[in-house]
């Protein structure tokens, strides 16, 4: 699966010139408000005809202005969850959900209506009209509608923005299942680092219509300088780990990674399952001696390989823990107090409870992810 976009386009005073290629399972489009995310996926969906350029999905040329190719939207089989839900006002929720099924060859229908309805918690709404739904309910139905058309590529335009955390946490695993079990490739627009880090195999970062960075999530997320100042603490290392065993007593799961063992709140996954975790830079403390009498359970020994001033009083410290880089964000005062220097031996200290659900996702099997 691959998406290739190489277009340039003007709309009004806004010029977009984006080139990226992603072979990822879930490619996140990340960027500030007005940076052109919606415009870009509109082009992939066939809603906007770029002035110039080429779009390919899985080797199929959808747009090639040079050759005069423009596959109409209904022939692309690309599902779209719009930023504004755009439900059909004359159809009930059930009618909206079923709409796309008519146009899917039965053999290619992979989405099951009951499962989707269950998951999205929209069972009680089935006979309602869209006008009688709350904002979040609308968005959930819109996700269901796009899914049930069983598209070959799913575009999601900030699908979770209007949902509360509880609902987000419920839906995120399903997005992961789409990605990993149904193996439907997804292009996911978001401005949440947490979502991106958790879900994406690849990230494309947009600023004012231009691609400023793109590549595997691990790589892009480590470049804290690219993140907006407010989000830097959210960035950090993304580790691919495996479930080693469960500690039923304390309700924890022990993950194995190159950096060492990590104890996280229990995951409902079998031993050996790959798990991806994000370690927020701001959740990592540095200790020069192995801490004692401290509630933090994860203590990884390592060597300082990088130090760079961050925003304000912060310093970003890269710690190589047996080949894996963990990022820590501490104050300049602490750096001086602890006399940290490149090559120094230290311990990265991480609380178990920092691995909440937002940071722990189903891992991407080894052969993919960039």
């Amino acid at each position: 699966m691959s998406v290739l976009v190489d277009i340039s386009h003007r709309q009004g005073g806004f010029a977009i010139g984006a080139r990226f290629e992603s072979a990822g399972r879930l490619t996140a489009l990340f960027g500030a408000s007005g940076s052109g995310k919606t415009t870009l996926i509109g082009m992939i969906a066939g809603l906007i005809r770029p002035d110039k350029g080429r779009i390919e999905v899985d080797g199929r040329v959808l747009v090639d202005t040079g050759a005069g190719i423009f596959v109409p939207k209904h022939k692309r089989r690309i599902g779209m969850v719009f930023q504004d839900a755009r439900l059909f006002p004359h159809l009930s929720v059930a009618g909206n959900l079923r709409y796309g099924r008519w146009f899917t060859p039965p053999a290619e229908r992979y989405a099951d209506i009951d499962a989707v309805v269950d998951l999205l918690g929209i069972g009680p709404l089935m006979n309602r009209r869209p006008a009688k739904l709350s904002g979040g309910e609308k968005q959930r139905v819109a996700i269901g509608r796009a899914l049930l058309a069983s598209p070959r590529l799913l575009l999601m335009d900030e699908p979770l923005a209007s949902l509360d955390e509880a609902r987000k946490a419920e839906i995120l695993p399903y997005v992961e299942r789409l990605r990993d079990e149904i193996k439907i490739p997804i292009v996911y627009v978001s401005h949440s680092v947490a979502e991106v880090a958790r879900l994406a195999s690849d990230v494309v970062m947009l600023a004012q219509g231009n691609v400023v960075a793109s590549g595997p999530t691990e790589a892009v997320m480590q470049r804290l300088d690219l993140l907006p100042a407010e989000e830097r603490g959210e960035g950090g290392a993304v580790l691919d780990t495996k479930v080693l065993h469960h500690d039923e007593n304390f309700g924890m799961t022990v993950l194995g990674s190159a950096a060492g063992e990590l104890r996280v709140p229990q995951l409902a996954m079998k031993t050996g399952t790959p798990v991806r975790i994000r370690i927020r830079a701001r959740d990592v403390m540095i200790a020069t001696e192995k801490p004692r009498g401290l509630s933090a359970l994860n203590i990884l020994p390592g060597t300082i390989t990088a130090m760079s001033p961050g925003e304000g009083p912060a310093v970003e410290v890269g710690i190589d823990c047996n080949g894996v880089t963990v990022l820590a964000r501490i104050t300049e005062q602490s750096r001086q107090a602890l006399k940290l220097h490149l090559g120094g031996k230290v311990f990265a200290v991480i609380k178990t409870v920092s691995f909440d659900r937002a940071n722990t996702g189903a891992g991407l099997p080894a052969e993919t992810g960039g």
Partner: protein
Amino acid sequence: MNWLLDLTPDEWNAVRLSIKVATVAMLASLPPGILIALLLARGQFWGKTVVNGLVHLPLILPPVVTGYLLLLTFGRRGPAGAFLAEHFGIVFSFRWTGAALACGVMGFPLMVRAIRLSIEAVDRRMEAAAGTLGANPLWVFATITLPLILPGLIAGAILAFAKAMGEFGATITFVSNIPNETQTLPSAIYTFTQVPGGDEGALRLTLISIVISMAALVASEVLARRVGRRLDIE
């Protein structure tokens, strides 16, 4: 009531005929009406102004002129009339079908306008959304556009029906006034108005015509409201 319904057989026939003619005129002009409305609302083509003008012509022309033009075109010796009669066996001249044609033509601009207005009010982003779900333009039209313009369709249809119930000038000029065949209510009313002392008869038929049209009107309102409630505008 007795006075009102104490009609001669010819008058009863006129009532029946009027309903038939108006219904057929309305139904038959719906498909071309939708098509032309779509074309005018969405199309970008050379000659759109001409099509638009042609559609409005029956409104602009005195009905007698329209009737005469129909006579020249769809009459026995008119080009279209001769062609249709020869190849499809459709004859308009002096038939109720001709009355329906005249009424349909006269109501056409009203119907097209109503439908066109509704089409222009449709949120095209809904159609785009349907497209991404795999619906081709025809399906999009049938499943999204058409339901959304239903109130406009109903309004257009009822206008055409009402117009057909009142149409007289074009009809009588085109297919004349033959009892049981082309004598619609307005023709019968006209006859009454042309004789001294015919007022009472004219009044009676007029009232009947009003009752029928009002019934249709109320039905259309109920229908439109039900459709509207389904659409839940707020």
